[in-house]
């Protein structure tokens, strides 16, 4: 396993007491595997990604659990050490490519700088490496674009540059947080294909965070569904999409409009995800759940075996 996360929790002190944004989350990612993390806004999916790379905004902090990268614990490293690992072993792609690029430097300079910081290469070797990365992510005529600034590129091309930057030091783990959300559908499909190919060819582990189940279906092998800070279902993508086991996943899948399926109405989950200040007792989904029973109101379910997947739902408790 490249990434192993065990019992990870993230808390924020606030005026209304301590809020738990990520609550006892565990998962792992193998080499060459893409794990999708899906959920609606506020489910804690981005927060989980930020906790893994230790970029939580204070006062948010990891309050429990451990994170291992290639077997080595990284959640308790000093900031200096973590900074080296972040560039060298972990590549990060955010939704808005402009937040990851410095507008005052050419894209060539930025990629070259990252390479020189992390790899033992000479300046001319670094330039060669940068050019081959740009070629790999599909920037046409990279020699000509090398000394262009980020504003010279379109949104889709910028996201390719960010991916090249994230790959510069040949990381083992790639964290992509909504990498295609700001892009048009035709460009989105190109970026998805690119991520998929890179994971397979380089044997890196990819954590793909998105709200879009379609992107996950196209890219990931396994998916973790998050709700109110917890993973409620974790399993192979095909199983989670075709036979979801948690009532929340069932509702989520049913509420997505599908092309080529004749339907008059979408399945609807009533209500909204609870705020962090008011997470219900027992299962956090129970007020919205069509299948709740007594136990759901009092006991919080752990992930239980359910078909090929695991679901945090008492429906799957062995009698």
């Amino acid at each position, binding site marked *: 396993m490249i990434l192993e996360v065990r019992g990870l929790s993230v808390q924020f002190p606030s005026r209304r007491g301590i809020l738990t944004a990520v609550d006892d989350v565990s998962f792992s990612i193998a080499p060459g595997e893409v794990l999708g993390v899906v959920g*609606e*806004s506020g489910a804690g999916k981005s927060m989980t990604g930020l906790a893994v790379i230790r970029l939580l905004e204070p006062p948010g902090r990891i309050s429990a659990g451990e994170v291992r990268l290639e077997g080595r614990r990284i959640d308790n490293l000093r900031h200096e050490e973590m900074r080296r690992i972040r560039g060298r072993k972990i590549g990060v792609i955010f939704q808005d490519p402009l937040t990851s690029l410095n507008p005052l430097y050419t894209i060539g300079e930025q990629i070259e700088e990252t390479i020189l910081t992390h790899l033992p290469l000479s300046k001319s070797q670094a330039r060669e490496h940068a050019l081959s990365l740009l070629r790999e992510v599909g920037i046409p005529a990279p020699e000509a674009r090398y000394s262009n600034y980020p504003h010279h590129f*379109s949104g*889709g*091309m910028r996201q390719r540059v960010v991916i090249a930057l994230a790959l510069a030091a040949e990381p083992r783990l790639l964290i992509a947080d909504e990498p295609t959300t700001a892009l*048009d*559908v*035709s*460009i*989105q*499909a*190109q970026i*998805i*294909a690119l991520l998929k190919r890179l994971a397979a060819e380089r044997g890196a582990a990819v954590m793909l965070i998105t*709200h*879009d*189940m*379609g*992107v996950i*279906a*196209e890219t990931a092998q396994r998916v973790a569904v998050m709700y109110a800070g917890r993973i409620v279902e974790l399993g192979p*993508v*095909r199983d989670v*999409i*075709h036979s979801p086991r948690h009532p929340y996943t069932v*509702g*989520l899948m*049913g*509420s*997505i*409009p*599908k*092309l*080529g399926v004749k*339907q*008059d*109405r*979408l*399945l*609807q*989950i*009533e209500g*909204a995800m609870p705020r962090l200040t008011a997470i219900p007792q027992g299962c956090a989904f129970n007020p919205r759940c069509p299948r709740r029973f007594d136990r759901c109101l009092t006991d919080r379910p752990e992930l239980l075996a359910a078909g090929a997947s695991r679901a945090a739902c008492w429906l799957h408790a062995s009698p």
Partner: protein
Amino acid sequence: MHLLSVDSVSRDFDVSSPWLNRVLEREPRRILRAVDHVSFEISKGETLALVGESGCGKSTVARLIAGLYAPTEGHIAFSGRRLQMIFQDPYASLNPRWRVRKIIAEPMLFLEEQKPVEQFLLQVGLSADDAERYPHEFSGGQRQRISIARALAGEPDLLICDEPTSALDVSVQAQILNLMADLQDRLGLTYLFISHNLAVVSLIADRVGVMYLGRIVELAPASRLFSSPRHPYTRMLLDAVPDLAMSGKSRTPVAGEVPNPLAPPSGCSFHPRCRYATARCQVEVPRFSDGVACHAVEEGRLPT
């Protein structure tokens, strides 16, 4: 008689540099044609959707119809009395200093009969008490319900919905789409629905117009457009939608990006990205006839 007919409407925007820069740097004026000879009709009780990628002019069409912009060329004829608009961002489109009661009552100022605000709140699935609250007390989905209640209060003959669910989570989107369908059934509403999401459009629209760089390239009943798309751009868009059924069907990779609208390609503006483009496509703008604007379709060159 159509409720709305849009006849060969175009809209230009002047995006030139300031006068002094133009003089000093000898720059010409620069005109962006956001909408280019667009024509369509909407009948009472139907939903027409306009789809396309960002910058294709679909929102400009909505604003032209709402009268927020004046057309540069062409005519828009509206035989109803009132229209209302629902915007994408439920945070920006409600006055934060007004109570919900005042927000919803505002469009009724122009009507003879003032109905109780509570009636509209109940219609969109909110409670009567919500009238005394402020917008910040509501979630994004609830705010979009308030926007819909406000639009209904104006008793519109036509509702223009500009990406009404794009800022919402999928489960909330499902609630709003179901609500819009229910309201249409009950009140016989007519929608012009602007969206970039083909799956949403396939659910809600009776007819669909596909836009590319300011032009409508295909216009067809939704069932036909999604089962047998004709224009190569429509086919490409449908192909790019992620396959949730995971049927493993092979997809043609989409090439290129939308060109700069300030310098649109000659002839058919889609030709640089089109697999079926010929010399004719590079020089001659295809005429819109029989629901599609494409030389290859006209010449019968496209595989079916």
